[in-house]
């Protein structure tokens, strides 16, 4: 019951709604104004619905049966798919790993972890090759652009806005009694200081709801303009999909497990929700420690900035460098590489899950410490 009342406090805050609405308007504006050349991907999606997403003889036959179009989309797709080959066949990802090791002068344990990571990935690459995983349609020649635009740009904005929203609403809730001068009444009630736990669960719930609201409208707008319905079952490791970094250049998009585009989308949504919850948890810890919400928000911002700056400061690629790459803000920065080997930017496999777990545990410890401290703090 108290949980619902805590949610109600947030729901009755016009500034929060204003913020969410502005974010939604901003996302929709960007999506609409940046939308260009969706004609081809939408055509590919319509082909995917009819011909399936596996690039085999049947696909080519069904594509050939499509009527010719004035834009030349069909011809372009025929050319692209006819040339398609299994990019994982003889793909030596261990050699890519060695390049990362070489450029960063990694040695000792770090080089060993890198080598193990890429040896494991090689095994998976071989299985992808055996399954012809890359012979999948996705968006054909438009894949790289659309994959980057959805999982890089749209998710990037969505997640950044959700993190800000999560942090602010959490700090708002944890500072609510103080700002309304109801601390004494609230903490002397039967619920007492356990109210903080209720506030935490309400904050995390509200953060996820805020993410959901932002996602539904922003992604809804995006999917209305860019038709994904025909390619959801396509493999995200399609030969048309690439990942890019300065050391290895363009190379196949390789994930630790086989994902369809829909599966990958859901997995990324899951990680995003996890990051939002982690930021809420961290903000809650800060909100309990610091009674000034303004300073609290600054601390949250500074902590995240530090997590970005620290790897730059520890440019020698030490363990400390890589530990900072597991922070939520760094995970946000690496969102386009979630569930892949992560290139040279991360050391461990499944860095997104590892980072989320590590951040979750760290922030939970911080929160519990703050809670313990608060349980014996004099309130005046």
């Amino acid at each position, binding site marked *: 019951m108290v949980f619902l009342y805590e949610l109600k406090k947030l729901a009755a805050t016009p500034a929060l709604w*204003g*913020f969410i609405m502005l974010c939604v308007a901003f996302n929709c504006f960007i999506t609409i104004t940046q939308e260009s050349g969706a004609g081809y991907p939408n055509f590919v999606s319509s082909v995917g619905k009819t011909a399936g997403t596996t690039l085999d003889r049947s696909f080519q036959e069904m594509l050939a049966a499509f009527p010719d179009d004035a834009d030349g989309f069909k011809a372009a797709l025929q050319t692209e798919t006819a040339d398609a080959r299994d990019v994982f066949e003889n793909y030596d990802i261990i050699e890519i790993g060695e390049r990362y090791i070489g450029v960063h002068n990694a040695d000792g344990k770090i080089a060993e972890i890198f080598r193990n990571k890429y040896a494991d990935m090689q095994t998976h690459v071989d299985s992808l090759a055996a399954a012809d995983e890359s012979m999948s349609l996705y968006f054909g020649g438009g894949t790289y652009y659309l994959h980057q635009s959805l999982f890089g740009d749209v998710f990037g904005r969505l997640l950044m806005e959700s993190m800000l929203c999560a942090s602010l609403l959490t*700090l708002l809730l944890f500072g609510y009694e103080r700002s309304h001068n109801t601390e004494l009444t609230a903490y002397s009630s039967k619920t007492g200081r356990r109210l903080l736990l209720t506030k935490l669960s309400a904050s995390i719930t509200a953060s996820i709801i805020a993410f959901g609201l932002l996602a539904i409208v922003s992604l809804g707008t995006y999917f209305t303009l860019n038709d994904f319905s025909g390619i959801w079952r396509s493999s995200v490791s399609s030969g048309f999909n690439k990942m890019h970094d300065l050391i290895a250049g363009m190379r196949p998009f390789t994930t630790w497990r086989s994902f369809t585009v829909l599966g990958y989308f859901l997995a990324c949504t899951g990680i995003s929700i996890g990051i939002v919850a982690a930021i809420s948890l961290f903000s809650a810890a800060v909100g309990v420690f610091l009674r000034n919400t303004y300073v609290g928000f600054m601390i949250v911002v500074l902590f995240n*900035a530090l997590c970005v700056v620290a790897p730059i400061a520890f440019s020698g690629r030490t363990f400390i460098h890589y530990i900072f790459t597991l922070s939520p803000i760094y995970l946000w920065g690496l969102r386009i590489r979630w569930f892949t080997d992560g290139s040279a930017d991360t050391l461990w496999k499944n860095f997104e899950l590892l980072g989320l777990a590590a951040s979750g545990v760290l922030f939970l410890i911080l929160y519990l410490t703050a809670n313990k401290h608060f349980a014996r703090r004099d309130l005046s």
Partner: protein
Amino acid sequence: MRILLLEMKKIWRGRILLLVALLCGLYSVLFMDFYVGHISITDHPGAETTELAGYMLDHYGATLEPDEFDEFMRLRPQFVAEANQYIAEMPVFRDAGIYNYDDIVVLSQNLERSEAEERAYWVLGMEQCNYVGYRIQAIDSIAENYTSFGTRINTMLYDEPLTASEQIRVREIVSLKEYYSVFPDIIEYTKDYFKYLAVLCVLTSLILTSPLVTLDRARKMNQLQYASATGRGILTRQLFATLISSLLLTLILFVIFGLLFTRAGTMKFLRCDINGFIGNSFTHIPITYGGYIGVLLVLSLVAAIASSALAFVFSRFSDSLVTLIFKLIPFFVAVDLVSVLLVFNRPLMIGTSNALTDFGLYAILLFIGVAVAALALRRERRVDI
């Protein structure tokens, strides 16, 4: 005056200043250091070009006349001799079958190099060869730019969609020999550095000044203030305290980040006209590098003060600091979009900007900021508390 000072004292609180300082440090590492480093250290042969521009400035003054150019080009044989010495001494060249700089020139035209050739080709530009390879590239590029400036301008006139006034201006650069300026091609880095400084000025001004009124209202101090002899005039003083604080903070940041920018080693070009032959950026008006930086700083100052004025209004209508932040974030993003995408997108540059986008938007922002703040103050005179 006393009230103004007391209000400023409320704004300049130690804890917030500490956080602002930390933020500036992190922000600087994240966004600004890169540009300083690229001008002076990591961008090759840009760094060598800048170094040679400095040499020209030291030896021939802010402009390079044709006879001075001939003299300057005598450096090239020296560089080649230096390169030949490295080539003779280092086995890496011998292993690749390279015995003098002419072999390197031939190699540069060959796209299918062996591993040994590839290594040798790049070694000449590295520190162990005192970057002599890049120095030769830089001097060749300078010579090319100096001798073919007229052709470049003609191409520009025909290829780029310039307005009539811009075409006149481009011809003026040639006829007035403005292009004799030895100014290196560092405008992009400079502009980007000061663009991020402008964003930092806005951000820190908002952080420092915006809580003033919200905190007073949260503590119900506004009731005491309004009931005092000063009455609602306190808000006018608080607005002035906000604007002055924003101005002061921005000036402090100018000093700090101006000093940090000197690490790039470009301050010696302050008196050089930026429409020089080395670069590709031409301005609507004749302007020196120092003048250009001055323009960027004025734009930053206007942005910071206008933002503070608008934030003052937001703070008046915020019950708590968190609701204030909810309003400030979109506002900050909007100001940054105007700054980064429009105003600081090559300000004053021919082909990419005009006077409206350079100064008009910020003038409008400043006007809106001060006007809205004034309206809020006027409204406050009759508001029931």
